[in-house]
């Protein structure tokens, strides 16, 4: 009979054995199963070499300390993606990095900053991403994110070479007249990685898992005006999609992103030009960063709602656009995005 009170060898052996068995059952076996039963979605692009380098920067700077990359299957996480994350989403990104570094812990456990599952969709502007890394508080007032100045170089304006990514701010704004800030290779890689973060669509015919409703959930009424027009809440779309660059007060960021408040294009009698820009993007003005197209990101109803919100707020006063106008422009500018 084993007397564990007196038999140190068996005490240790039994502890070891039971713990190893439990660990195999609860950790190693499920991990192995999840690793082996995984495949990328058909529509998922492979990561490029540059995106992989960007992921390495993401890991080295410890971004996952504050940013998650998981859309949980609960109502409140709808903000971060169209569907709950599934194991396939991590097929390419969560691979062992090299001999020294394991598969990165991208899911994270803290949301001190926003979830990044879909950030490439949500904030598709490279200029915004660069500026935000260089000084987050220039573009997001209340942010507590660190500045990543060491991913950028301040150089003489004359030394800027073609192919350099120059931050869309002047030397005066940076307190260094005659200088320009250019992105290092690491910053370019990191931004390439961030812009690649988009939820891949599920194959046609496959229904995404539903989000679990929050306990005791009931409907939140839409603003009366929106209900009347049968449109979603344009103000909410504005703060989700547009405010990052154009700022919550729509006054823009001089030298980087144009103001919408008082803008002649916004206040034009006909909304046609504005609809064009929102659908197809805009890069005609060298003093500002380019505007990414939203055709693939927003539906006709959403674009109509947000355009009407901008045209009637921030001191602007222009007649509303109609969904029909947006629909017909979409057929011209981005026919590939027309929903089936």
């Amino acid at each position, binding site marked *: 009979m084993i007397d564990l009170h007196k038999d140190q060898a068996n005490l*240790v052996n039994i502890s070891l054995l039971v713990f190893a068995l*439990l660990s195999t059952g609860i950790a190693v076996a499920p991990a192995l199963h999840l690793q082996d039963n995984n495949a990328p979605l058909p529509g998922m692009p492979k990561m490029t070499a540059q995106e992989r380098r960007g992921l390495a920067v993401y890991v080295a700077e410890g971004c996952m300390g504050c940013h998650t990359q998981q859309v949980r299957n609960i109502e409140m996480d709808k903000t971060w993606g*169209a569907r709950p994350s599934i194991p396939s989403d991590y*097929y390419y990104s969560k691979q062992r990095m090299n001999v020294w570094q394991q598969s990165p812990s991208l899911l994270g456990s*803290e949301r001190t900053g926003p979830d990044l599952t879909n950030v490439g969709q949500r904030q598709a502007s490279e200029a915004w991403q660069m500026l935000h890394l260089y000084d987050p508080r220039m573009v997001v007032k209340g942010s507590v994110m660190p500045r990543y100045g060491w991913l950028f170089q301040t150089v003489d304006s004359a030394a800027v070479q073609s192919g350099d990514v120059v931050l869309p701010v002047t030397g005066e704004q940076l307190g260094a007249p005659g200088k320009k800030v250019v992105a290092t290779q690491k910053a370019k890689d990191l931004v390439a990685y961030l812009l690649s973060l988009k939820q891949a669509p599920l194959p046609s015919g496959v229904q995404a898992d539903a989000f679990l409703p929050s306990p*005791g959930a009931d409907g939140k009424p839409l603003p009366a005006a929106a209900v009347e027009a049968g449109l*979603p809440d344009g103000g909410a779309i504005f703060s989700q999609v547009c405010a990052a660059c154009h700022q919550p007060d729509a006054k823009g960021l001089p030298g980087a992103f144009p103001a919408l408040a008082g803008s002649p294009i916004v206040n034009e009698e006909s909304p046609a030009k504005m609809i064009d820009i929102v659908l197809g993007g805009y890069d005609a003005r060298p003093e500002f960063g380019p505007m990414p197209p939203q055709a693939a990101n*927003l539906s006709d109803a959403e674009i109509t709602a947000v355009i009407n919100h901008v045209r009637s707020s921030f001191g602007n006063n222009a007649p509303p656009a109609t969904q029909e106008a947006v629909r017909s422009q979409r057929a011209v500018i981005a026919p590939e995005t027309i929903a089936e």
Partner: protein
Amino acid sequence: MVLFVSQVVQAQAPRTEGWLSSPGIVGTMVLLAIVLFIAALIITAQVGRMLKETKDKRAARLAEAELSAEELARKKAARQYKLRGDELGGRAPAFDAKALVAKASSEPDNPLVEEKIYSRARLEVAPELQRVVVWYLAASVFWLVFGTLVGQYLGLKFVWPDLDGQAWLSFGRLRPVHTNTVFWGWASLAMIGLGYFVIARTSATRIFSYRLAWWGFGLINGSVVIGNLCLMAGINNGGGEYREYIWPVALLFALGLMITFRNFYGTVKRRTIPEIYVSNWYILAALVWTIVLATIGYLPWYQDGLGETVIQGYYMHMGVGMWFMTFSLGLTYYYLPSALNKPIYSYSLGVLAFWTQMLFYTLIGTHHFIFAPLPWWLQTVAIVFSVGMFIPVFAGTTNFLMTMRGSWSAIGKSYVLPFFLVGVVYYCVGSSQGSFQALRFTNHIWHFTDFNVAHSHMTMYGIITFLMWACMYALLPKVTGREPSQVLVGAHFWLAFIGLFAYTVSLMAGGTVKGLAWMEGVPFIETVIATRGYWAWRAIGGSLMFLSHLLFAWNFYCMVRKPRAVTQHAALEPQMA
């Protein structure tokens, strides 16, 4: 195409009015109340004693009023009696034949607070063992101060994000420096150092090999130094919490553990008494389990895709549960009864807690990834056994509290026991709170918020760190014969306790506000701005905690420094050698 924004806008906003009455929240409130209650208990015990003294004096005065003239005269004469001044003098040297007088002094050490009882006995300890224990503990104290300095700096960055623009001081790189330093530097070295004493003492033998002890010392310290330099240089294993050190560095640590296990096992094996004391069950098992854990955590063959996530949940939870919690409990099973000078309340309850600790704790790692794309059954198992954790937690808490029962008055008179009491109460409160947090509703509100940070400080600080301090204050004076200043120990205690309370409550409140706002669909950046005030309070609490560590480092120095030449004052102190 399904478009995400439409769902944001048409999101069904959850109704959150009823949140206050949900079981997890109510449970947490009750737990907080327990901590406050204990603090109130300690304070009222002290105040009550003072009040009673005043009342006794007044009662004596009132009684005097009813005395007859004769009695009054007698009393008056008694009052006017004056010593001649030479009663205790005389020329013959005084001799305390039965060593009844612990300390004789005409001037108390401090005028402000009651003097605590001095450590009575000095233990005979082999000088080699003493050196091992003191050096392990000294290194741990260094890492505590360094690690919490980093933590304090990180806390300030929430208030002033532009504190510096240095890559190696940036939040993302320093955060793991803080956590890994206090884990592998402070708590681990402190536990092993204290463990060396327990393992030798309860086996009534000498340590198997002092050389191995020094090898372990070098390997563990080396891994923390190299690991932290790597992290600050931007070299980490993949960002998974507590396994940020790349594998060659973690290997140094694991080798340190293996050597320590060899040494402890060898010592237990050559014990001169038949039984293995329950402390040694915990300590040996903690070492074995952690070696398995490190192996599983770092082997690569099942860690691609979400395999890594399952292992991460398992690893980070077991790191706390199987290493820090198990080892600290083992130490408490020795140091608490020895500080009270009586046996543990129930030996078999300790054994029950041991086996349930292993069974339940091991299965709950996935509760860090509830609602994540991990198998639902894995999440459910984790939740169920998280609730099962109440068994080992209550078994342990009951055992410690019942051991203290009958010695409550000793708490007011000891500078060691308050640390034990706080550690034990937080063991109950922090662990139960963790179980509540694993429930799906509370997880809904609290996951990803600052609440997590509050929970980890409640456990790693409230439980582990307070227990380590208790054990050190209990052990070192007996080994070195030198006591710290009681006022400074008291200051250490209250600063750490109040600091921790401010720290955890502010982050719990801030985390709750943030989680509820997220559920209501408030734009993210507004929830960041709304947390500012709570972060400021966290920084204040953290400052108090850090200040207490400086005091503790000084107290530690006072306990271990080489005795100076005997002075007049020191000669009056009881020399227990």
